[in-house]
């Protein structure tokens, strides 16, 4: 295999999503917030998916959420993804759901509904991605 096949898959970003990725670089999970209907959305869009208004601003989310569902991938998608690893759907405190990875946890100890907290992981090529770990509220 050549080197690009063993690199992790990089997100294909758009101009619209730039504040999201800049937020990740700054250690902040940013979501679009609709000033008209007062709801958050993910992924980024040109209008609010609830009310179609274009009055969207970026706000920092708490980074807290719950595991909506998860799976332990035992057969990885490529050599860049050593199995086992956990793919999860996270319900953020602000409402939206996103796909992510669960880290710092025993794969056999994960449960749906578990409280998690965002952290940021270097993904190569200078990119930082949001992943989630069990919440440790001090």
């Amino acid at each position, binding site marked *: 295999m050549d080197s690009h*096949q063993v690199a*992790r*898959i*990089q*997100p*294909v*970003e*758009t101009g619209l*999503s730039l504040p999201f990725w800049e937020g990740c670089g700054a250690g902040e999970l940013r979501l679009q917030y609709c000033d008209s209907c007062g709801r958050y959305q*993910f*992924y980024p869009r040109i209008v609010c998916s609830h009310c179609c208004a274009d009055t969207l601003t970026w706000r920092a989310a708490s980074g807290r959420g719950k595991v*909506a*569902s*998860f*799976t*332990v*991938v*035992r*057969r*990885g*998608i*490529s050599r*860049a*993804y050593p199995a086992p*690893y956990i*793919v*999860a*759907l996270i319900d953020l405190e602000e409402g939206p*759901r*996103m*796909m*992510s*990875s669960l880290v710092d946890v025993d*794969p056999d100890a994960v*449960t*749906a*509904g578990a409280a998690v907290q965002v952290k940021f992981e270097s*993904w190569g090529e200078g990119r930082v*991605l949001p992943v989630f770990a069990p919440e440790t509220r001090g």
Partner: protein
Amino acid sequence: MRGKVAIVGAADTNVGVLPGRTPMELCVEAALGAIRDAGLEKTDVDGLLTCNAMAQPLMYHAEAMAEYLQIFPRYCLAVGAGGGTTFSIIHHAAAAIVTGMADVIVVAMADSMRSGLTREQAMQVQASTGHPEFEQPYGPTVPAYYALIAQAHMAEYGTTPEQLAGIAVACRAHAQRNPAAQMRDPITVEDVLASRLIADPLHLLDCSLVSDGGSAIVLCSAERAADLPHDPVYVLGAGEGHSHEHISAARSLTTSAAREAGERAYAMAGLGPADMDFAQLYDCFTPTVLVELEDLGFCAKGEGGAFVESGALGPGGALPVNTHGGLLSHCHPGNPGSMFALTESVWQLRHAAGERQVPGARHGLVHAQGGIMSSHTALVLSREAG
């Protein structure tokens, strides 16, 4: 549209591992088989619907096929709705016949997922399923997406891996009675659970096959069908439901748009789930069948696991499901996969399904989905025009 259109011809190629045959060759073989089965000539065909092949992607697939066959249709289109393409195409084809866009339509699909994909193509199929910006980087595999659905159903309703395994066991029991099926050795729930974990809670035997193969049917008006050699199989109802593309944006992980698809198909047919003598349900992974059984009204939400455990799905059960063996045991050549559920339904409703015939079958439900439980079509097929 109810009862105005009938399936009059059906044919499958051999399925399984077919090295050296291109998808186009399989597609043409199936189409000619279906035309012959209908008692028609290629010159009778004025509509052609296909889907592209991953192992041989073509810019204009349906046109290429018409050219290969040297037919000159007035209605010609390749459709791409993933695994849901098959029945969404039948919905459109039936409408095209009713509105006069075409009189005799061939629907033909084939692919060589087993023998025809390069390593790069196979990787691309895996990697290209999710959202390129917000899903793919996390490395979800195709089984992983469906595992998310299974895990959510387990957490919400207490469904067990044993119950999921029961679906694979039932499909295999049907396949044992089907000489054409790719996998015919009997399996047990224990075998499924002992097969290696792919993406928790899915084991290898919870996952469908990877196959080569092609399949085709011929559709025409009920009026014209009366003059053709076989008992017509009428399209009594058709309905679709579309809820999302990406699983992270689904309205629900455990209730799918199969619910709307089923409600619309039953309403058109004037029939309900209790009237169905069999059901062919999209089974790329066992949890899809579980959710579909509930959403298509065969049992209450959350009771799919218990319904499977009752033995209803197997041969001679209360609701035989995937009587040919399904994607899990008959074959799964990618997007064309559910075509084989359609040809099987034709043979069941002609009462020509041999050892696996559901006695006296009058009505059957077929369902397919594309994406990750994204796009759903249900059809009610019948021996009776209604």
